[in-house]
């Protein structure tokens, strides 16, 4: 009565290795402030499995995404719940395999870059999941357990083309889907505020930041604002990501541009439209990337071009 999705795990997990890694990470309060370029080159290597936390174009770590493209990774594996950032990485041929839930441009339709990547075979493997399933897979890793049960995905091809399993519940006898833990090599999260050690605050809803941060072996934080640790200690209940999870803290004002950031700025609809228009063909998206990503040395240069003085 037990059943398995057809795909092997893109990112097999080892809880003992994860524990050993977590043990080695420093628990000292040491500054982790660095540039996008250092954060990406130190904590991502080609072939790694990465995850980016966001909700659509909201709170998306775009300055880090552009740096990943700039460093010309070619074989990344990813958990894909994404819009702009993943379309751009696909356009730049950074991705080889994906745990896929939703990749599209929301109201602007399908992701043509992903279509090209998948339909051409450049992206070699796509495994299906639901949004909650991916979030719960992070949660399993965050809890330090091998799987979490759910009643999602049952009875569908989403299950069949996943790496989930189903069993009969030992307590009720009824069928339940088991979602394997998803431990990231590197997670990337953009937050409202962080101190230099990596204690982070997020305003409003928090998406899957709590779970993904705890599921990451390495964690890159970009923050709109760097605050003093005294501010963190004044309201410790606001810390959603504690410092010991964090490896790099990047000060990235307008780090989610052209997307939006809660309590900071709205979407740059004009720039978004320009990009989505460009993304329709391989040639035009190349022109966009050449200008706005490869053509910029770093995020500061990008921001100076976006907001000319």
């Amino acid at each position: 009565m037990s059943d398995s999705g057809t795909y092997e795990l893109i990112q097999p997990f080892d809880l003992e290795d994860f524990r050993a890694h977590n043990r080695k990470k420093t628990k000292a309060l040491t500054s982790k402030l660095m540039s996008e370029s250092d954060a990406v080159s130190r904590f991502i290597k080609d072939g790694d499995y990465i995850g980016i936390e966001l909700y659509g174009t909201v709170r998306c770590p775009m300055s880090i995404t552009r740096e990943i493209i700039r460093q010309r990774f070619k074989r990344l594996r990813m958990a894909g719940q994404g819009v702009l950032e993943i379309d751009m990485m696909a356009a730049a041929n950074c991705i080889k395999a994906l745990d896929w839930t939703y990749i599209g441009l929301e109201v602007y339709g399908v992701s043509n870059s992903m279509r090209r990547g998948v339909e051409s075979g450049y992206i070699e493997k796509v495994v299906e999941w639901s949004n909650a399933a991916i979030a719960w897979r992070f949660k399993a890793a965050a809890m330090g357990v091998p799987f979490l049960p759910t009643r999602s995905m049952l009875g569908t091809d989403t299950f069949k083309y996943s790496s989930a399993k189903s069993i009969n519940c030992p307590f009720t006898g009824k069928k339940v889907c088991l979602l394997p833990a998803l431990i990231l090599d590197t997670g990337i999260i953009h937050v409202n505020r962080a101190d230099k050690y990596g204690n982070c605050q997020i305003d409003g809803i928090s998406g899957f930041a709590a779970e993904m941060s705890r599921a990451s072996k390495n964690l890159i934080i970009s923050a709109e604002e760097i605050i003093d640790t005294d501010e963190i200690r004044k309201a410790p209940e606001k810390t959603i990501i504690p410092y010991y999870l964090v490896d790099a803290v990047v000060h990235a004002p307008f780090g989610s541009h052209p997307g939006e950031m809660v309590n900071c700025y709205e979407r740059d609809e004009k720039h978004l439209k320009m990009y989505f228009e460009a993304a329709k063909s391989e040639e035009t998206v190349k022109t966009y990337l050449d200008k706005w990503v490869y053509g910029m040395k770093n995020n500061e240069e990008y921001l100076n071009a976006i907001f000319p003085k």
Partner: protein
Amino acid sequence: MQYSPNELLICLAARMMEDNSTAFIGTGIPMLAASLAQKLYSPNLVPVFEFGGTGAILEKLPLAVGDMRTFNKALHASGICDIMETAQRGIIEYGFLGGAQIDCYGNLNSTVIGSQSKPKVRLPGSGGANDVGSHCWKTIILMQHDTRRFMPKIDFVTTPGFLTGPGAREKAGLPKETGPYRVVTTLAVMDFEPKSKRMRLIATNPGVTVGDVVKNTGFELLMAEKIQRNEPPQEKELHALRDEIDKDRLYI
């Protein structure tokens, strides 16, 4: 008054949203429908957005399921796990879904045209759709109506309808008494006949005949004993939509 197919869909969906009920709201038409419903029909509708917003007052139209407007003056702002678990616990009554293909049991495909490993057209994938379709009590499906979409066999079951028919959801382990409730299209409104769990025409849209619906449906459609006629969008609905909710005409 003139109106677009989307405006009609929005109005039909808005009228289905009960006051004091919880409804999972996705990007696009459901957001417009929920805004319209709060304004005209169901001031106490509790919109639930998958990334964490519950009970927002929809003063400005959200553009994404996680933007600030999804938790504007909300009662609760949490995260995706909390919201999806709330659905899994049976708290959320309605869910709205779309798709590229649907079959007579209300199963939906939003993943792929062709085969999953060698796709003809790769679509955006499940997103929250599979979860909404698994856990909400009543899912309302919003679609364009033609034979490329209403198919006898869909290429991929992304989101469960009644699967292979009566009893199949329960057998698969899905929660009891859940499943598709209505299919609202550019041509008509369908429900699912309780015994066979097959799609059944219950109302046609203005200017649409039963024959039009049948002709645009790629499988045998059951017929309700009495087929109703849907009211067209009313002036107050169109006014609210065009002049208040979507002034910038992003969707309509």
